[in-house]
């Protein structure tokens, strides 16, 4: 089954599930979504002493090791780890279980882009009631902001993805390219590279919602704002247009490869130099090291290009945390597990698996920062990446139905990519579809 068809089916499920969840939220008392509960961690500590059994859904590579370590430390707690699927499959099942009223896990991994959807519909426990708001200073501002929805705290951040520019040094050296500091220089490098060797591309992009929103974020755009049930969408704000003005050149001149991201061909292209750069999250080194052996010694990391070439700014791409589901019969114990995962001994197995943390202490430790990465020719890549973690543009938020939005990105903006035309008409079509959908779902959606 083609990915588009699958994502459409998933979109249908998500849409139906969301509709019911929202209507339940507006009519019933159960869905007291965003709040601002406060409390202490006593209940959590007590639940941990008492023990019990909880279920944890996650597809992260470190989940298994973390669960084992947790059970060793707390033998009276049994954690059933279930890998219910990666990305959309996981969310579809989660949303279905929430809608059905049973079958959801106690703790679930939820990415930042998906969190508002689950928090807004009242599916998650506000961890403020367990006093977890005290952890604010432990996390980077951008990740902390991502787990706060409408004044409530709906998870603890696990990883982060401040964006940087990964580039194939070998390709750059061979064609006499310098590492771009601005996006204009990046476009120039794209032209020069493709002219010198038509089989090589500066990057690949066939229209990816996660990438596009992150790029708009870096350009200073704030296309999505939510206040209760009022949603404002403006995908033609200054930041959005700043990004399209640059990226249009790459798309219109066919300077980006059309190899779909994460396909076998894509991994191949990362290894043989067909794709020369990647603007992506700080978690990418782990993927390159484990899955692109052909690129060893060739890749290097630089700060993400900016528009003015002066102030370093970046955005988050990917990453997420763990949340406690309202369906949980043992929410305090579930919260204890989340605390251990992302604010306790669980961070170490996560780091060991090659993850990029959200906790300031780990980001700033010299062992992490000064580590020379053999894959990257001994470059201390974390110097660049941890610096990026502090340069994320503040104030971003995702839509309360971002998963659906991302699933229809290909139908709207994807057309601009396919026809190699400007992205603004595509973004406008996406916006229109999102306004219509949001209004159908019971939000009041306005445009900017």
């Amino acid at each position, binding site marked *: *089954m083609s990915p588009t068809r699958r994502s459409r*089916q998933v979109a*249908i*499920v998500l849409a*139906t*599930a969301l509709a019911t969840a929202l209507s339940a939220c507006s009519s019933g008392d159960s869905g007291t979504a965003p709040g601002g509960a406060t409390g202490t961690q006593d209940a959590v500590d007590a639940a941990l002493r008492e023990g019990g059994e909880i279920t944890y*859904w996650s*597809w*992260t*590579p*470190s989940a298994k090791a973390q669960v084992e370590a947790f059970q060793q430390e707390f033998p009276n707690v049994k954690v059933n780890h*279930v*890998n*219910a*699927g*990666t*990305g959309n*499959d996981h969310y*579809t*099942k989660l949303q*279905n*279980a929430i*809608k*059905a*009223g*049973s*079958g959801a896990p106690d703790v679930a991994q939820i*990415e930042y882009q998906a969190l508002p959807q689950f928090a807004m519909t009242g599916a998650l426990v506000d961890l403020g009631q367990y006093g977890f708001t005290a952890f604010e200073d432990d996390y980077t501002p951008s990740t902390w902001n991502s787990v706060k929805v409408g004044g409530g705290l709906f998870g603890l951040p696990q*990883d982060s*993805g401040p964006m940087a520019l990964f580039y194939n040094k070998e390709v750059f050296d061979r064609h006499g390219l310098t590492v771009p500091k601005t996006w204009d220089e990046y476009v120039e490098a794209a032209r020069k590279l493709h002219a010198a060797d038509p089989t090589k591309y500066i990057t690949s992009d066939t229209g990816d919602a996660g990438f596009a929103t992150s790029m708009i974020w870096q350009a200073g755009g704030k296309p999505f704002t939510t206040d209760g049930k009022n949603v404002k969408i403006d995908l033609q704000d200054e930041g959005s247009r700043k990004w399209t003005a640059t990226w249009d050149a790459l798309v219109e001149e066919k300077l980006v490869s059309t190899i779909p*991201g*994460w*396909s*076998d061909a894509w*991994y*191949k292209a990362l*290894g*043989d130099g067909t794709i020369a750069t990647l603007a992506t*999250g700080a*978690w990418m080194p*782990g*993927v390159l090291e*484990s*899955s*692109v*052996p*052909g690129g060893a010694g060739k890749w290097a990391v630089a700060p993400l290009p900016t528009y003015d070439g002066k102030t370093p700014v970046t955005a988050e791409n*990917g*990453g*997420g945390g763990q949340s406690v589901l309202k369906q949980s019969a043992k929410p305090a114990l579930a919260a204890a597990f989340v605390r251990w995962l992302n604010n306790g001994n669980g961070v170490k197995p996560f780091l060991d*698996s*090659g*993850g990029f943390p959200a906790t300031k202490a780990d980001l700033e430790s010299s062992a992490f920062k000064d580590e020379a990465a053999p894959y990257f020719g001994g470059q201390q890549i974390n110097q660049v990446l941890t610096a990026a973690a502090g340069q994320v543009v503040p104030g971003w938020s995702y839509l309360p139905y971002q998963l659906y939005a991302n699933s229809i990105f290909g139908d709207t903006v994807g057309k601009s990519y396919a026809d190699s035309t400007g992205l603004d008409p595509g973004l406008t079509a996406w916006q229109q579809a999102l306004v219509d959908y949001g209004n159908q779902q019971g939000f009041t959606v306005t445009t900017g």
Partner: protein
Amino acid sequence: MSTVATTHSPLRPRKSRVLTAVMAVYLLYTLVPLVWLLISATKTQQDLLSTSGLAFGGTFALLDNIAETFSHDGGIFLRWLGNTLLYVVVGAGGATALATAAGYGLAKYRFRGRRAVFAVLLGAIAIPGTALAVPTFLMFSNLGLTNTPWAIIIPSLVSPFGLYLVWTYAVEAVPDELLEAARIDGAGELRIFFTVTLRLLLPGVVTVALFAVVSTWNNYFLPLIMLSEPDWYPLTVGLNQWSAQASGVGAQPIYHLVITGAVITIVPLVIAFLLLQRFWQSGLTAGSVKQ
């Protein structure tokens, strides 16, 4: 008539170059992905990402790949294979049995409400399974059956199309006179069904069974939303999970195992088709000529 017959004998149809060419193109279109799959299954993950799709890699790793497919992640592939077999044997087998009995009954017995059944049946054929998946999920969730094998088996038991096929087939293939003769000889209805009717219906039943086996074997969307516990996944959903872990944060691509797993997944279906195709052909052409 005779002159026409010498050039256009029904037994020796005229050869058409255009049609042959179209068939050749279609053959290529069908076979190339299969060839790609088979060749790719012999490559290591490394070769897969560095060599051309239709050429063999540096090492012939088919056996290693098969061994790794069965041992990866605690041998869960074998479990998925077993699950799929369970769903096929119980689900598709049950669907075939029910469709056969019901189709025969509707074709050969007169009772009130037959037309209503027919209308409901046609309606059921028209609704795609995907559209019913979410309501079915909610219903099963209320019954507490999600995340169990029953969530896959029970919906698979119903095959409106199979029922319709047996019905129309039974009208043609089972003469009323034969049933009457059997009744006069003193045979009960059950005995007639098992000793007389089933034999006559066999080509139709095999056709229905093949349809049911293929659709249960390939069932994807229903198990995707019904099951969250990988221990109950069928091969389709399990392979997709392996394939999906190649993307995003913490990506761990294992394309060589996904491809080898796909080859192993289609082998039983190919065998089933080869063994049953003569029934299949006679089943499909039944009723095309008035006897």
